[in-house]
């Protein structure tokens, strides 16, 4: 065996994980490069250069919060205000965490990073993901998380330095993220499980959107979803007791 082959052999489980993970992240790549670039353009356009948007994209790494954060910078808000607004907007992360408790349980050293990098998009790619047995699954989760993080930072960087050079019309490209969520919704539906929960998610969100408007419906929608799922849990438990 040549030296080169030996290297390949040694690294093959991780390499196979990377090979498996990359295509899964392609739709996120499209969405993140565009949304990240738009963020970079907006920040540098407001006179915050390259370093602030880069710093924020690396360490905050939360798309919708970063867009809201542009208004924090413009108004130079009180940090406590920024903190509580961020908590509200990020409350949906609690759902992702609870959903991933089992999945990330044995992730060991990779666990802190996997949790840190659990964005909407990474969650949506990984929540249904079961890699084949011969591929180390935590490495797959890690590479999906890392690649997504990289796309976001790269997009921000490109937007911040080259905002004015974009020549073709990219309007609507960010629809890739909506498309990704719709595709995952269909995948979950086809799996035959969780139909009532999926319908609950849509109906509760639409009702709260109508009542509370687009800027404040997330938290009420989460409370309504939790309430409905909790009542279903107690109904099931009561049934189990009776039988």
């Amino acid at each position, binding site marked *: 065996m040549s030296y080169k082959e030996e290297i390949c052999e040694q690294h093959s489980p991780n390499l196979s994980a990377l090979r498996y993970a990359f295509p899964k992240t392609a*739709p996120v790549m*499209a969405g993140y490069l565009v949304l990240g670039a738009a963020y970079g353009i907006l920040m540098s356009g407001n006179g*915050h250069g390259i370093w*602030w948007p880069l710093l924020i994209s690396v*360490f*905050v*790494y*939360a798309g919708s*919060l*970063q867009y809201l*954060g542009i208004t*924090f910078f413009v108004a*130079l808000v009180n*940090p*406590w205000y920024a*903190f509580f607004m*961020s*908590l509200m907007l*990020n409350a*949906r992360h609690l*759902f*992702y*965490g*609870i*959903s991933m*408790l*089992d999945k*990330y349980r*044995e992730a060991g050293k990779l666990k802190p990073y996997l949790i840190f990098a659990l964005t909407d998009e990474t*969650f*949506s790619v990984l*929540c*249904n993901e079961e890699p084949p047995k011969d591929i180390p699954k935590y490495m797959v989760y890690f590479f999906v998380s890392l690649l997504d993080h990289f796309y976001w930072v790269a997009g921000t960087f490109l937007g911040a330095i080259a905002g004015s050079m974009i020549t073709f019309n990219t*309007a*609507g490209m960010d629809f*890739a*993220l*909506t*498309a990704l*969520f*719709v*595709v995952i*919704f*269909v995948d*979950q539906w*086809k799996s035959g499980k*969780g*139909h009532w*929960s*999926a319908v*609950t*998610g*849509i109906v509760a969100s639409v009702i709260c959107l109508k009542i509370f408007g*687009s800027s404040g419906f997330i938290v009420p*929608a989460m409370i309504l*979803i939790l309430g409905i*799922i*909790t009542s*279903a*849990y107690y109904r099931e438990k009561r049934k189990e007791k009776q039988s």
Partner: protein
Amino acid sequence: MNQEMISYLLIVISMVAATVITRFLPFIMFPAGKETPPYIAYLGKTLPYATIGLLVVYCLKGVSFQSYPYGLSEALSVVLIVILHHIKGNSLLSIGAGTAFYMILTQLIFR
């Protein structure tokens, strides 16, 4: 560092803190060593489905059905994605075709 820089930095630190708290809290409250309470385990099994539904609505929250083009770009694109994905089941194809279709609709047709 001047005062403005420090104010920006404090805002960034607040955003990082809030994000880290919301992402880590469930894992801190229900650590791997202990058994997760059955109610939380039940939530873990059912919530992902509802959450994706919430995210779909979240993405489409800005669509207006009252003014031209009456949400048609989004509605037609979502229908295309659902049908395509139901038949072919290829994520990249569904997302690529759906996004391209949406871009054509918004840039060329419903201008």
